[in-house]
């Protein structure tokens, strides 16, 4: 296989880069070992930062976030719910931080509006009685799946190609250049080679591992964060705790749910991570100080991701920062030509935020195009990203609305919790079939809301699997294995929340799939 630019990693950064390069007329292939957003891009808070969170710990990143927030609201409105955000302090929070907050925001050019505690509670009745200070900022909620899928679709329209479940295993380097990249198709275990003029490492927290294969050293901190999804939406706006960033201090609404988080724990590897029970307890205890009803509300799922934090960029003494909160949220763009390894056609882009993915893509594409002698300029700053039909079903509440309007009885619901009808599953499965691929349950759930409601896949998994076979999307004996894999994945997010009705649901899932169907045997 040959291409101009090979991009490793189809997260927010890789997909945004694929779009940027394609718009400049550059041919590229995205190689992703999992699926789109398999890494941090599929496991974050979905907060389009105003920048206010980083004004003290990282003013440069704060200003970047603010600028990108403005741009994305114009170019990607279909992925954004412009909720606005609040920063609130409760009794006992650091008074100095509160007093300095508006000034620091202004210094970074971030708009901020002071509110009285009563005004804040009028806007968000769930807030605690003990709120002592509040400010309004430009935070918004962004759907990370739709973001990446829309960028990807746009890139594909312009000729970019995506290889999912393909892992980059090694590079062949000769004369200071990567002459070819070895890739394994994880489904068939077949190896093949891709020749590219430039290779971009956009592997997020895995960037160090990829770089090492080209003889380059990058030091990364793997900073794990866990989050919890509530069954119902708790607030209209994003709510941040007004203090130095720490655990359990952000609540972000998204469609019909809210997401509460997060934690920050250094882990030894970006793989095999789980949301832990002690993290859940911390998030709950901290979050309910700000919004008391978070202690009683129902949760449907927990998940976690690893932030890619390049370790070169500490801005304080690491001994004083055991949880990496003070490591820069800025991005790191490395031209490996200028590094000791001197590989001329290899570039790494890592770190940063979801919020800044477009900017990271722009800077990377500038560097890549420089290497290729391409003069075309970046178009993503102003040109809107088309609202892709394929990426329509990720946001909570969308499929139901479409179903009620369009088809009611004609289109049976396969997922009853989130009201995902047959036609949506069919569209997704068709888009896979068009690329000669099989859509499993996990892939469908990434692109829709299936399995994301209270039953967490207990019922819809069987219905959708039966449907896929019926329609001929699946025909081998892998269906039960796919069912197992999907339920295991759902379980990861259920297990730490298994108390109260969470435990009842977990019991129902196991009773059905082990008690009756013996999937564990």
């Amino acid at each position, binding site marked *: 296989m040959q291409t101009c630019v090979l991009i490793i990693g189809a997260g927010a950064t890789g997909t945004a880069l694929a779009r940027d390069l394609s718009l400049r007329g550059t041919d590229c292939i995205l190689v992703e070992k999992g699926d789109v957003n398999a890494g941090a891009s599929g496991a974050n808070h979905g907060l389009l930062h105003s920048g206010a969170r980083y004004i003290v710990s990282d003013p440069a990143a704060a200003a970047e976030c603010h600028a990108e927030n403005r741009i994305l609201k114009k170019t990607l409105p279909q992925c954004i719910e412009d909720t606005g955000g609040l920063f609130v302090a409760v009794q006992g929070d650091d008074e100095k931080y509160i007093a300095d907050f508006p000034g620091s925001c202004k210094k970074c050019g971030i708009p901020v509006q002071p509110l009285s505690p009563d005004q804040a509670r009028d806007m968000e009745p769930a807030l605690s009685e003990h709120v002592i200070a509040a400010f309004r900022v430009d935070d918004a909620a962004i759907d990370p799946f739709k973001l990446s899928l829309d960028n990807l679709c746009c890139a594909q329209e312009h000729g970019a190609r995506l290889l999912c479940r393909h892992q980059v295993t090694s590079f062949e380097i000769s004369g200071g250049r990567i002459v070819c990249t070895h890739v394994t198709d994880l489904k068939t275990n077949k190896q093949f080679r891709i020749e590219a003029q430039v290779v971009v490492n956009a592997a997020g927290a895995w960037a160090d591992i990829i770089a090492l294969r080209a003889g380059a050293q990058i030091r990364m901190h793997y900073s794990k964060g866990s989050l919890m999804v509530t069954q119902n939406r708790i607030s209209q706006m994003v709510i941040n705790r007004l203090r130095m960033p720490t655990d359990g201090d952000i609540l972000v609404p998204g469609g019909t749910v809210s997401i509460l988080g997060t934690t920050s724990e250094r882990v030894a590897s970006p793989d095999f991570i*789980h949301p832990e*029970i*002690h993290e859940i*307890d911390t998030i*709950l205890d901290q979050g309910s100080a700000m919004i008391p009803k978070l202690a009683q509300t129902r949760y449907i799922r927990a998940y976690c991701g690893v932030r890619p934090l390049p370790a070169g960029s500490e801005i304080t003494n690491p001994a004083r920062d055991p949880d990496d909160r003070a490591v820069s949220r800025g991005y790191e763009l490395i031209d490996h030509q200028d590094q000791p390894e001197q590989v001329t056609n290899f570039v790494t882009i890592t770190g940063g935020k979801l919020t800044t993915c477009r900017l990271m893509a722009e800077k990377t594409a500038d560097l890549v195009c420089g290497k290729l002698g391409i003069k075309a300029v970046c178009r993503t700053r102003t040109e809107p990203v088309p609202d892709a039909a394929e990426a329509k079903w990720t946001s909570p509440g969308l499929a139901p609305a479409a179903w009620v309007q369009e088809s009611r*009885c*004609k289109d*049976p619901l*396969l997922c009853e919790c989130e009201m995902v009808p047959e036609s949506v599953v069919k569209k997704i499965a068709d888009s896979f079939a068009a690329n000669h691929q099989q859509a499993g349950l996990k892939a469908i759930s990434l692109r829709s809301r299936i399995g994301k409601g209270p039953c967490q896949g207990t*019922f819809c998994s*069987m*219905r959708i*699997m*039966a*449907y*896929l*076979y*019926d329609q*001929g999307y*699946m*025909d*081998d*004996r892998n*269906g*039960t294995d796919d*069912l*197992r894999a999907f*339920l*295991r994945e*759902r*379980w*990861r997010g259920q*297990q730490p929340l*298994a*108390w*109260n009705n969470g*435990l*009842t649901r*977990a*019991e*129902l*899932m*196991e*009773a*059905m*799939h*082990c*008690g*009756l*169907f*013996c*999937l*564990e*045997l």
Partner: protein
Amino acid sequence: MDNQKADIHCDLMIIGTGMAGMAAALFAAGQDLDIVQAGRTGQLGFASGLIDVLGVYPVARGRIVKDPWPAIADLGRHEPAHPYAKMAIREIQTAIETVLGFFGQAGYPYVYKKNQNMIMPTAAGTVKPTYAAAHTMAHGQAAMAQQEACLLVDFKGLKGFGSRMIAANLARTWPGLRPVTIGFPEAGTELHPEPMARALETARMREKLAENIAPHLGDTASVALPAILGISRTQKVTEELSGLLGVPVFEISTMVPGLAGIRIKEIFQQHLPEMGIKAFFQHSVRRAYRQTGGGWAFEVGDHSHLRLVSARAAVVCSGRFLGGGLHADRSGIMETIFTLPVAQPPDRDSWHHRDLLHAGGHLVNRAGLAVDTSFRPVDDKGRPVWPDLFAAGTILAGQDWMREKSGSGLSIATAYAAVRAARRFLDKT
């Protein structure tokens, strides 16, 4: 609480209308005892048409049990805390035969071999060991074992039962399975098993269905369907449909809640009151009071209508988390009616394994009420908490019915033991 104020006096109160509660009522009926029973019958809906006794042992090794009785003896030796270990095997057999006999008399016979588990196909395309299968399902055992040529029918518009999925995933075990999708006579776009089953209780619809199936028969030796072969007249529906097609027709167990649950529920709800049980189906026990001088008083019902029932003794069959007998918050597991001590893992971290399908199962499923050999809940020193309170069913500690494949059998057997112990207590006082 003063005994006089009660609206109803009885000897034995049975709390719960799941499989354990229903079996307990059946065992206690006809013994000159005044019996009151309360619970919500929703839980019975989970019956799958398969009665498990012990299908897998040891659990961690996932070994399928051929003959449940020696395996139960083995389990009794290695797991003394297991409810089965507190009974004689002959009692377990009696209990199960009694309940199966009752279903048979009620017109919904189960098929089983005394000393052998059956291996059944499921709607997930897996196989499941069980002890007894509803007559509507039983033929699946032989058909699969003999790799019979079998036509597997699903219906346009019936979700969650895919003949292609089942056939593809069972292909190795059962190559003779041939999937086909047909329309259900006079159906709309979306089908549900219950109306389909009711429709098949009429001769006209059976004939129409047979007409729809017939063109696909070929050289098939049997026809498999989702669970839709009638509700209260399953024998007639199965026989006549088999007659029309000229080959045996049988059901494959589907996602629950399903038809088998509705059948069993209707049978219990009809027969238990006829046998003299004063039953409050769809009512819960809201509070339990200890009476001075022994015995219990229970508030039964909802806000609008509360009854006070006094009882000399009680059997609690209130199930686990799904049934409502146990409740968990972040700090631990509680029993919901009497706040009885619950045997449980030390902290929440050890409740569940990270892998849903981990071979050993999850520790939290072994939490529950520890009991003595009279099936009285005990405290952490092993002493009975109350002399007149007994427990049965899945609320009991020391078992993992989901992994052992012992659900209904365990509920039935322990109900038998608990009722017998309660009877002894009542005889003495």
